[in-house]
């Protein structure tokens, strides 16, 4: 694996985040700092246990949106590389959903870029999440707090009123 500046994978099948981090680290031998974030499927929803989570994407368009975010991160910080792995399809509780990693010479840039990427993936990448429980299913939409984290780049859509989780 070469130390490519941007690596994006959209996967229908489960992935091993430990291996993803090892491979990313090996690909960036010049890094002095590697930061990563792992998002996993929650065990419980608003009121009851989650049976599974369904994540929908828009093939082609979703990859392009993630690529744009990665390029923005590169423009903003001196990074050696970033990696985003995102699941789609059906996931069980505890399954990894998203892995983000950034490599830089010093830790601050890697940490900042990782936070930027995960915050913006929530509201700027075309994904739609449905939580399935014993009593039914519901689509989950981002909260106003999610938008607040990325407000400078991407305000909540006009008319957006969802304040619940």
């Amino acid at each position: 694996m070469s130390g490519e500046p941007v690596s994006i994978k959209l996967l229908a099948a489960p992935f091993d985040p430990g291996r993803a981090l090892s491979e990313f680290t090996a690909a960036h031998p010049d890094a002095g700092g590697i930061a990563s974030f792992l998002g996993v499927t929650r065990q419980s929803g608003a009121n009851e246990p989650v049976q599974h989570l369904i994540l929908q994407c828009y093939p082609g368009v979703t990859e392009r949106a993630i690529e744009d975010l990665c390029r923005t991160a590169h423009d903003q910080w001196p990074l050696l590389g970033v990696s985003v792995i995102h699941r789609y399809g059906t996931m069980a509780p505890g399954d990894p959903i998203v892995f983000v990693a950034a490599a830089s010479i010093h830790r601050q840039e890697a940490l900042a870029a990782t936070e930027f990427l995960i915050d913006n993936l929530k509201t700027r990448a075309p994904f739609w999440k449905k939580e399935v429980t014993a009593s039914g299913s519901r689509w989950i939409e981002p909260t106003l707090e999610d938008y607040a984290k990325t407000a400078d780049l991407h305000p909540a859509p006009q008319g957006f009123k969802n304040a619940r989780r």
Partner: protein
Amino acid sequence: MATLLFFGRLGDMAGGVEREFSLPEPETKLKTILDVLNREDLVLGAALRDPSTRIAVNGEIVTEMGCIKDCDEIAFMPPFSGG
């Protein structure tokens, strides 16, 4: 014929993610398509027109109600929830 894609909760409301749409004219205004969908189903029509719904034509988000041609793909996207 154009392809309509309904993502997230809009897919449940539309009865499926994808459907073909017969264009009344070779170049049909997006607004006309929304009017037709609204006549078919007022609840879906209102959700598609909601300001929080983003519309993409051939993968590019549009803010103007331009024209749709044969083979175009129109995606209706409620707020994203990745990560």
